[in-house]
């Protein structure tokens, strides 16, 4: 049985992080700032729609592409919000969260040896999923550039084998985002080199200081972009597992082929609830966003006061402060903070090697929790000065 697991799977996922996660999960009464999901429960009207659909007996498969009314709702949402025209019949696919969509996309477009550009620190799945699809991830270190890519930085990593860029903004884990002008420059470069933009915009609705720009709304970008979004973050629906992808019909058709064999369709209850979210969820999203916004500002002030330098995040619900002033590694800092003060954060190295010297703090936690965690962190840091 020894070598039963495929080699490329054996080589995935750095084991150190897993051990740290297990340590957190095994400990009681931890204040966790390590959670990558909202601290709100799904708004009631959305949950109620899910319950009602069950009562009505909606318990069957749906079309592989997803419920038509949900695709139509998404199409209208994108039209209203960004002026984007996506045809619900051919250009939208409902997936099990953005995660499934990304996997499908990479499997649908990658030939062995194709390269995928991934700005890091990044969400954990991009690299491994690209590798599983037979691609070669090319990591672009953004730490010296305020955690953002620029055309100059991109250019250095492009060659003949470069097939796609996975862009994620607002970014998990850093909270940075891009303004329209910055995106336009990136878009022009991608178009010039014929590189597909895989744009993960699942935190798009949680952008605080300026309006979020959808990548496909840029000039000429729509035919060259796969746009990913989902209900998890904005509507606090992580456990429902509903995401969607919009793009050129050839790619969506290719992705649907894989999806129909591997997933068939997303749970109908979840799709029904998601359809309701588009109808009546806007007010709840705005309320949650305002709450995150206040916590974001408070956390930035407090962390900088503690000597953990960070700039004001522009989106999502993460801050990525530097812990270099402590002289500890990301893993040591996180482990000691957990053991000594029972506060959990995620070491920056979970998001790529270049995350060394940083930690990810999630402010998707009540203000009382955040303040208690900050006071424990202060004790932790004072002891080391």
């Amino acid at each position, binding site marked *: 049985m020894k070598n039963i697991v495929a080699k490329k799977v054996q080589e995935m996922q750095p084991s150190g992080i897993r051990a740290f996660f297990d340590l*957190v999960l095994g400990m009681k009464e931890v204040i966790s700032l*390590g959670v990558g999901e909202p601290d709100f429960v799904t708004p009631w009207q959305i949950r109620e729609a899910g319950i009602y659909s069950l009562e009505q007996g909606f318990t069957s498969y749906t079309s592989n592409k997803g419920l038509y009314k949900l695709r139509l709702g998404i199409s209208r949402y994108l039209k209203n919000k960004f002026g984007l025209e996506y045809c619900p019949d051919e250009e939208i696919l409902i997936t099990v969260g953005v995660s499934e969509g990304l996997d499908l996309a990479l499997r649908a477009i990658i030939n062995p040896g194709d390269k995928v550009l991934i700005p890091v620190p990044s969400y954990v799945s991009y690299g491994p999923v690209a590798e599983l699809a037979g691609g070669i991830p090319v990591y672009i270190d953004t730490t010296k550039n305020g955690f953002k890519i620029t055309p100059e930085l991109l250019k250095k990593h492009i060659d003949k084998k470069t097939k796609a860029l996975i862009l994620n903004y607002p970014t998990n884990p850093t909270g940075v985002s891009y303004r329209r002008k910055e995106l336009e420059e990136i878009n022009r470069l991608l178009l010039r080199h014929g590189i597909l933009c895989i744009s993960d915009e699942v935190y798009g609705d949680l952008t605080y200081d300026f309006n979020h720009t959808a990548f496909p709304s840029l000039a000429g970008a729509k035919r060259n972009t796969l746009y990913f979004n989902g209900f998890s973050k904005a509507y606090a629906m992580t456990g429902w597992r509903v995401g969607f992808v919009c793009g050129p019909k050839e790619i969506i058709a290719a992705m649907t082929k894989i999806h129909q064999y591997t997933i068939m369709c997303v749970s109908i209850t979840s799709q029904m609830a998601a359809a309701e979210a588009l109808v009546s969820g806007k007010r709840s999203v705005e309320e949650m966003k305002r709450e995150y916004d206040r916590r974001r*500002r408070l956390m930035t002030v407090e962390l900088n006061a503690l000597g953990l330098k960070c700039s004001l995040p522009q989106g999502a619900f993460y801050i990525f402060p530097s812990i270099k002033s402590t002289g500890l590694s990301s893993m040591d800092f996180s482990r000691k903070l957990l053991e000594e003060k029972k506060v959990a954060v995620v070491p920056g190295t979970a998001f790529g090697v270049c995350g060394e010297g940083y930690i990810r703090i999630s402010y998707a936690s009540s*203000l009382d929790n955040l303040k208690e965690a900050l006071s424990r962190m202060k004790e932790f840091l004072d002891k080391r000065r």
Partner: protein
Amino acid sequence: MDEILEILEKDGRASVEDIAKMTHKKPEVIKKAIKQYEKEGAILKYKAVINKDLIKDNESEVRALIEVNIVPQKDLGFEKIAERIYSFPEVSSCYLISGTYDLLVVVEGKNLHTVSNFVAEKLSCLENVRGTATHFLLKKYKEDGVILKHKSENKRIAISY
């Protein structure tokens, strides 16, 4: 609504310092704004929302919602008679509403007897009060946006990407 008011409406105990951090303004600015709101009467008072069902030594308290039909007065409309009603200390809330009756009056008392006495001896006998209908409150589920139930525990896993 001003963000300061929005924060205070949710948490009356939010400190000036915290509000300053949350809004990225100077504490002096926040302090001044709050003073001004208090002066203008925009902020009337600060109080806790208490679930009296959970207070063991609480003397039992009865609440009733009373629909009151009144005859409006010339020139004064409902104002004068409303004032006569809401000035009673037993009245905790009083609203003028549209529909089949005119005022909705919330009355609190130690027991059924005190509340019904108030209705029979004070409220109903007022000149211009044409009739009342008293509804005793049996259970409170939600008040001022707060669900009166034990807080549910956190259901999220402690760490995730």
